[in-house]
C-alpha cells in the first residue's frame, strides 16, 4: 500500500479522538524548526465543523484488544495499515513546513503489548524532537498498562499526554472493553499528574530543569453508549480536574461503529447532550461551579432545553436580579448569558462609569438571557417578576425570525391599514 492510502486509513480511524487542542504550551523557535503558540491555532475545519490543528493519526490501526465501541477492535473487519515512526516524522515536518498543522497528535492501536507500542510512539516523538529539531506541538497517547518509565519518557518529548478513560464507570468498561481495566488507566494518570507537579516545582527552582508535558494531560469518554447519568459523568470530570489536575476532559457522543449486543441502538449521536456536557464542563473550569450545583441526585441529567447555567439560575431565582454595577465578578459569571469575556469587560468599564443597559449592549454583552437576571442603575428591563415557568418558556422560545417574503411593487401604496392605525390617520 502506498503512503497516501495508508494515511487515509489511519486518519479515518483516528478521527474519533476528539482532542485537537494545540494550546497551553509556549516554545520559541530558537534552533530547529517551529514553535508553539500558547493560545493555540486552528488551521482548518472539516465538514462536521470540528477544527483541524494537529495531524491526528494512528501509528497503526491493528489492535490486540476487542473493545466493542471502537472501530479498531480485533474482531472488526477493516483494512489495517501502519506507518513507521520515520514516516510519521517526515509527514509531520512536510505538513508543518507548509503551515497545514500546529503539530502532531499520535495515537495507535496496541500491537504485541503495551510496552512495545508505547516505545514506537516515543520513537516517533524523539525523532521529531531530536533528529528534526521540531519545536511544534506534540500530543502523545499513552497506552494503558505501559511501564511507568515509558510514561515518563513520553512526557519528556510531548507537550500533552492523554489516556482515554473511555467509559464513566468500572462496570461499563468491563462490559464494553473486557481487555482493559480501570486501574490500568487511572494508575498512569496519577503517575503523570505527579510528574507534572514535580516538573513544575523543579522548573520554579531552575529554568533548565526538563519539561514534562507542559500542556498537561487530558482524557476522553464516550457519552450515550452506556446508561450512566450526566451527574456521574460530571462528578467524574470534577474529580479529574480537582485531584489529577487534568487540563481537559473531552466528551464524545457515541457513534455506533459496530454492532455488539451490548451497545444501544440510537437514532443518531446524542450531540445535544454532548453539547450540554461541555457547557457544564466549562462551568466547572471557568465559572467556579461545583458539580453538585450543576446537578444533584434529584435531577441527575442535564436539561436539554436550557443550558446548565440557565438551569441553575432558574432553580435559584431568589438570588436574582443582581445589579450589574455592584455585583462581584464571581456573581456576574453566574448570570446566564454572561461569559468570562463579558464579565471582565463589565468589571473594567464600571470603574469609569455607571453602566446602563445601553452601555452593556455597547460592551458587547448579549442580553438575550441576561436581561431577565440583571438590573442596571437599579432598573430592570423586565418590569414584572416572572415566575420560573414563565421564565423558562421565555428562555426556550425560539428566536423570532422575520419571515422572508417577496415584496410586491404595489403593496402599501393604497395605505396600509395597520400603519394608519398606528399613526392615527384613519
Amino acid at each position, binding site marked *: 500500500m502506498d*503512503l*497516501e492510502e495508508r*494515511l*487515509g486509513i489511519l*486518519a*479515518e480511524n483516528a*478521527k*474519533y479522538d476528539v482532542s485537537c487542542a494545540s494550546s497551553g504550551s509556549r516554545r*520559541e*523557535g530558537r534552533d*530547529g*524548526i*517551529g*514553535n508553539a*503558540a500558547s*493560545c493555540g*491555532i*486552528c*488551521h*482548518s*475545519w*472539516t*465538514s*462536521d*465543523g*470540528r*477544527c*483541524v*490543528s494537529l*495531524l*491526528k*493519526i494512528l501509528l497503526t490501526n491493528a489492535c490486540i484488544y476487542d473493545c466493542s465501541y471502537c472501530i479498531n477492535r480485533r474482531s472488526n473487519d477493516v483494512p489495517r495499515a501502519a506507518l513507521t515512526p520515520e514516516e510519521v516524522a517526515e*509527514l509531520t515536518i*512536510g*505538513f508543518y*513546513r*507548509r*503551515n*497545514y498543522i500546529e503539530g502532531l497528535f499520535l495515537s495507535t492501536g496496541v500491537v504485541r503489548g503495551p510496552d512495545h507500542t508505547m516505545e514506537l510512539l516515543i520513537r516517533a516523538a524523539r525523532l521529531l524532537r531530536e533528529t528534526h529539531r521540531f519545536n511544534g506541538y506534540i500530543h502523545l497517547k499513552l497506552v494503558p498498562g505501559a511501564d511507568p518509565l515509558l510514561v515518563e519518557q513520553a512526557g519528556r518529548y510531548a507537550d500533552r499526554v492523554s489516556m482515554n478513560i473511555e467509559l464513566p464507570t468500572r462496570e461499563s468498561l468491563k462490559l464494553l472493553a473486557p481487555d482493559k481495566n480501570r486501574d490500568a488507566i487511572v494508575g498512569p494518570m496519577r503517575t503523570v499528574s505527579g510528574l507534572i507537579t514535580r516538573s513544575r516545582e523543579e522548573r520554579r527552582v531552575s529554568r533548565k530543569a526538563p519539561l514534562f508535558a507542559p500542556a498537561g494531560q487530558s482524557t476522553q469518554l464516550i457519552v450515550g453508549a452506556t446508561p450512566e447519568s450526566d451527574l456521574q459523568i460530571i462528578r467524574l470530570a470534577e474529580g479529574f480536574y480537582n485531584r489529577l489536575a487534568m487540563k481537559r476532559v473531552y466528551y464524545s*457522543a457515541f*457513534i455506533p461503529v459496530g454492532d455488539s449486543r451490548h451497545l444501544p441502538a440510537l437514532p*443518531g*449521536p446524542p*450531540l445535544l447532550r454532548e453539547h450540554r456536557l461541555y457547557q457544564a464542563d466549562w462551568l466547572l473550569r471557568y465559572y467556579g461551579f461545583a458539580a453538585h450545583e450543576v446537578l444533584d441526585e434529584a435531577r441527575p441529567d442535564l436539561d436539554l432545553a436550557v443550558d446548565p447555567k440557565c438551569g441553575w439560575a432558574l432553580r435559584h431565582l431568589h438570588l436574582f436580579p443582581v445589579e450589574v454595577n455592584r455585583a462581584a465578578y464571581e456573581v456576574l459569571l453566574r448570570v446566564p448569558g454572561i461569559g468570562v469575556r463579558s464579565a471582565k*469587560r463589565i468589571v*473594567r*468599564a464600571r*470603574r*469609569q*462609569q455607571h*453602566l446602563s443597559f*445601553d*452601555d452593556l449592549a*455597547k*460592551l458587547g454583552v448579549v442580553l438575550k438571557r441576561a436581561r431577565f437576571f440583571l438590573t442596571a442603575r437599579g432598573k430592570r428591563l423586565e418590569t414584572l417578576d416572572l415566575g420560573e415557568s414563565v421564565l423558562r418558556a421565555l428562555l426556550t422560545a425560539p428566536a423570532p425570525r422575520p419571515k422572508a417574503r417577496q415584496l410586491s411593487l404595489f403593496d402599501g401604496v393604497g395605505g396600509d391599514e395597520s400603519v394608519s392605525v398606528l399613526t392615527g390617520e384613519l
Partner: protein
Amino acid sequence: MTSYLYDGTFAGLLTVLALVREGGEETTSIGTAPPAQAGLFAATVRVEADAEDAERLLDEIGRRMSPATAAHLYHAFLSETEGAEMLLHHYLRLGWQEGRCLDSLLSHPSVLPVHRLAHRVRFEAHRLKGFVRFREVREGFYYAPLEPDYRVLTLMAPHFADRFHDQDWVIHDVRRNRAIVHGARRKGWEEVALELTGSPVTGGREEWFQSLWRRYFDRLAIAERHNPRLQQGKVPLKYRRYLVEF
C-alpha cells in the same frame, strides 16, 4: 477648519496627529486624498511623514495612556477603513484628557469604534495564521498567497519569522500587491511591494504533499456529525481560494 493629507503610512498619520494636537485649528478631515467635498472655508494641508515626530508621539502615548493604546491605534489604522483616521483623532483627543483610563471607557463613542476596528484586524491576523498555506516553489523556498480584508501582513510576520526562521518564504497579499519576504540566512523579514506576473510553478514533491493533505482532510470528517453551516462560519468562503484542502 483644516483638511490634512498624509502619505498613507502609519508614520505619516502619526505626524498629522502630532501636528493637530499642537495646533488649535479644528480638524475636519484626515486622509490620503483630498476630501470629495471640501468645505468652503477649509484649508488643505499636506503633511510630510516625519519619523522623529511619529516616534515621539508614540512614546508619549505609551507613557500618558498605555502601550495598549498605541497598539489599538496601529491596528485600527491597518483596517484601512474609510474615516478611520478621524476616529483615531477623536480617540487620541479623548486620550489626552483621560490618560490611563482611556481604554477602560469601553462604551464611549470615541473609544468603542476604535476598539472594534482594532479587534477585527487582530482577529483576522490571528485567523490567517492558521490559513496561510505555503507552497514549495523551489527547493527550500516557500510561497503563500492571501487576500486579507485588512492590512495584516506585518502583524503576522513575527509569528512566521519565529516559526520558520530556517526557511526562505514569502507571504503575498495578492489584493494589495504587498508581501512579507523572509530570508533564512539574513535572519529577518521585510515588507515589500510585489506583483505576481505568472502563476508559481510547483514541483512534484509539492503536489504529492498537497494530495496527501487533501486525502487526510477528506477522511477526517465524521459523516454522522455533518454540519456545513458550522464549517462555513469557521472557514468563510472568501478565504477558501488559497486553502489547499478546499
